[in-house]
C-alpha cells in the first residue's frame, strides 16, 4: 500500500533561529510591524510503500530519527499520514 506522510521539522524552542530573526526584521523594514516573530522549519513530504498504516508510521519515525531530523537541535512532528489510492499514485 502507498502512503504519503507530512513531517514538520522545527528548531527546538531554545535554539536560536538566525533565519527567522532576519526574516522578521526584513518584514519590519517592509513595514509589516505586526509580525512579532518568525521561525523557519522544514516541511518534508514522504511517499512510501508499507503493508499497513502502522508500519508506515513506524517507518517514517525511523527515517526522521535516523536522517531527517538532527535531534541535537531539532524536533519534529508527523503531521499527517494517509493512504494514497492506487490511481492517485
Amino acid at each position, binding site marked *: 500500500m502507498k502512503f504519503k506522510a507530512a513531517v514538520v521539522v522545527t*528548531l*527546538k*524552542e*531554545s*535554539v*536560536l*533561529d*538566525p533565519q527567522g*530573526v*532576519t526574516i522578521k*526584521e526584513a518584514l519590519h523594514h517592509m513595514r509589516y510591524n505586526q509580525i512579532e516573530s518568525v521561525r523557519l522549519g522544514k516541511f518534508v513530504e514522504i511517499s512510501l510503500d508499507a503493508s499497513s498504516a502502522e508500519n508506515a508510521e513506524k517507518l517514517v519515525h525511523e527515517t526522521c530519527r535516523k536522517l531527517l531530523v*538532527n535531534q*541535537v*537541535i531539532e524536533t519534529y512532528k508527523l503531521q499527517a499520514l494517509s493512504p494514497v489510492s492506487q490511481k492517485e499514485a
Partner: protein
Amino acid sequence: MEKIVITPQIVEEHGLTPEEYGHILTILNREPTITELGVFSVMWSEHCSYKNSRFWLKKFPTTGPAVMVKAGDENAGIIDIGDGLAVSFKIESHNHPSAVEPFQGAATGIGGIIRDIFTMGARPVALMNSLRFGKLNEPNVKRLFDGVVRGIAHYGNCIGIPTVGGEVYFDPTYQGNPLVNVFCLGILKHEDITLGRAEGVGNSVYYLGATTGRDGIHGATFASVELTEESEERKSSVQVGDPFMEKLLLEACLELLQTDAVVGIQDMGAAGLTCSTCETASRGNSGIKIELDYVPQRETHMTPYEILLSESQERMLVIVKKGKEQEVEDIFEKWDLHASKIGEVTDDGIMRVFFKGEQVVEIPAKAIAEDAPLYQRSYKEPAYYKKLKALDLDAVKEPNDYNTVLQKLLADPTIADKHWVYEQYDHMVITNTAVLPGKADAAVIRLKETDKLLSMTTDCNGRYCYLDPYIGGMIAVAEAARNIVCTGAVPLGITDCLNFGNPMKEEIFWQFKNCVLGISDACKSFGIPVTGGNVSFYNENPDGAVDPTPVIGMVGLIQNSDYVTTAGFKQIGDEIFLIGPIQSNIGGSEYLSIIHSIKGGALPEFDVELEKRVQSCCLELIRQRSIKSAHDCSEGGLVVAVAESCILGSGQKLKLGVSIVLENISGRIDGILFGERQSRIVVSAAPKMADALIKAGKKHNVPVTRLGVVTQETISWTVNGKKVIDQPVKESAQNWKGEIERMLS
C-alpha cells in the same frame, strides 16, 4: 530572589576544588552568591585561566623585533610586516562542540576565531582549518567529516573570508574525538591596533550583537540548584552560528574603530559577558558596573547567573568614550544592529553586576582575571614510550611491489588530494589568493597596494608526537617553517593549538610538557616568536586519549611576487633535485602505518641545525630564481612528494612524469622511497641551473642530490639499477584526486 546556600557539593559541581573555594573566600572576605560562584567557576576553568598549562606555556619565546602585541596580553598577538602594516593571527580549537554537533560546532568555531581577530582592529582576510578524524571508512567519521566541512563552509563563505588552506588527517586515534582547529589572520594599519580595555571612569559599556539565550551554560547538575524548571528544559548546549550577524558586527566594529569614540573592544567568547567585562576592567586597571536588565535577551525569565554565563554567539562588548555615544549608536544603526548601553567604567577596580536593582556580583576584577590558580601538574614517562621506540623495524619485510605501495599511499585519505574539502570553501573571495589551495605547501595571499605577500600553513603530525613528543613538537615547527619557505617566504611567527588528553593523567601531562618544550626550543632555534594560541585538554574517551597533537599555525612574509613558488613541476626536461639528506628510516611513517599496520619505531633522525640550513639553501635558490618548484617531503616520503609534483604540474592534456635514477644506495629501499625523514625539499630547475644548486648546497653545507629529470606520462624510479616504480601519472592522479570522494559516496 531566593538565596542559595553554597554547599561543598555545589562548589564541586562548579569544578572548583576546596582550596580554590578557600581562595575565593579570601578574595571576597565572605561567601560568594551563587552568581559569583558561577563567575569564578568559568573564569577559573581550564578554558579561560589555563591553570594547568600556563606554567609551561611561559616557556615559549614571545618576543622579537617585529612583535607589536605579545601572546597572552590580548585576544591575539600582532606582528609588524612593514609599510605601516601588521598582521594578527590566531588558532583555536572547537573539538568538543564539533563532536556533539559537527556542523554548528565547526561553524561557531569559525565565528569565534574571526571575532578574536577583528577585536584587535584587524580586518580578517584569511582562514585555515586543521582537522583530524578517525578512519574515513567509519560511517560516523564520514558524518563528522562532512558536517565539519559544511559548517566551516557555511560560516566562512557567508561572512566572506576565504578559507585558503588547512590540513586533514585520518587516524584511529581520533575516533570519537575529532579535532577541529580553526585559524584566522587579519591585517591592520599600525595606528588601528585596538585593545580590549575598559578605561576612563564614566565611559559607557555597550553590548552589541545577537541576543542572549541559555546557550552553552556549562554543567548540568548544579544548574538545577538555581535554574528554574523552564531553564532546565530549554537549555541548549549547542549554539547556532549566525554568520550574517557576525558580518554586520565585523563591518560595524571596523567602521567604529575609524572614529575616536572607542576605548576598547572585546568579543564575548567563552564565559560570555563575565569574561569580557572582568577582563577588560582588569586590563584597564578599572572597575566596571553593568545592569543585566539592559542585556537583550532571547528567552524569558533568565536568571543573572544564566545571563552572565551564557555563551550565545556573535556578541561584542564595546567601551565608548563618554559623550561619543551618539556617534557610535549611529554606526550601529547604519548596520541595523541593536546596541544597548549596559553599564559604565568605574574607578574602584570592582566588577559589579546589578539585576532588577539588586547587586548580584561584587568582585575585584583583577582577582578573577589574574589571580586564577596556577598548577604545576606532575608528569611521568608513559609505559609505551621506550617500548615503541625500541621496536625492531629490521623485521619489517620490504615489499616486492612498490607500484602498489605508491598507489595505496596516494589513495590514503591523509595523503590524498583534499579538493573535496577546499572546493566547498570559498577560497578566492577578497581577491588576494595568489596561490590557490593544493598548489603549494602553504597558502599565499597578496597584500593589496604593496608588493608583499603572506604565506601561511598549519602543520602537525600527531603520530610523531606520540612516538616522541619533544622531537614531534620540534618537527611540527620545522615542517611549518619548511612549508612557508617552499613558497618563497620567511617565517614571521606562529600560533599554536595544543590538543591533548586529560592533563590530570601524569602520562598525558608528560606528553604535553615535552611537546611544549619541543615547540619552544624549535622556535628559539629558528628565531620565530609564538604570538598566541590555545589549549584543548580532555580530548579522550574511555578508549584513550588522542595522540598529542600540537598544531602549529605559521605565517611568513614574501617580499615580492617574483619569489612566489609552487609545488608542481613546470616543464619537461627540467632537472629534479633533493635538498637535504636522502637516507631515511621508516619509523613513524605513514608507510609503516598504512602498509604494515605498525605504529612505532624510532623517528628518523632530526637535527634542527640541518633543517635551518636546508631552509636557508632553498630560500636562497628561490630568491636567485634558480628553481621553478619546491615541495617538502612529508607524509609518504620522497616518492609521494615527487608524484605530487608531477600531478600538480600536469594540465588537462599534458601529463608530467619523472625518470629518477639513484645509484649506490645502501640500506633499506623502502626507507629511501617512503621514509619520512625531515629537512628534505624536492625542487626542479632548468638544466643550466644544476651548478647553481650544487654550489648552494656546498655553501650551506647541505646535501643536494640530483634525482632525475621531468618527463612525460610515466613515473619511473630506478634504484641501484633496478626499476622499482613504473606507473602512468594518470593512474596516480586518479587515485590521489579521487579517493576521498569515492569513500564518501
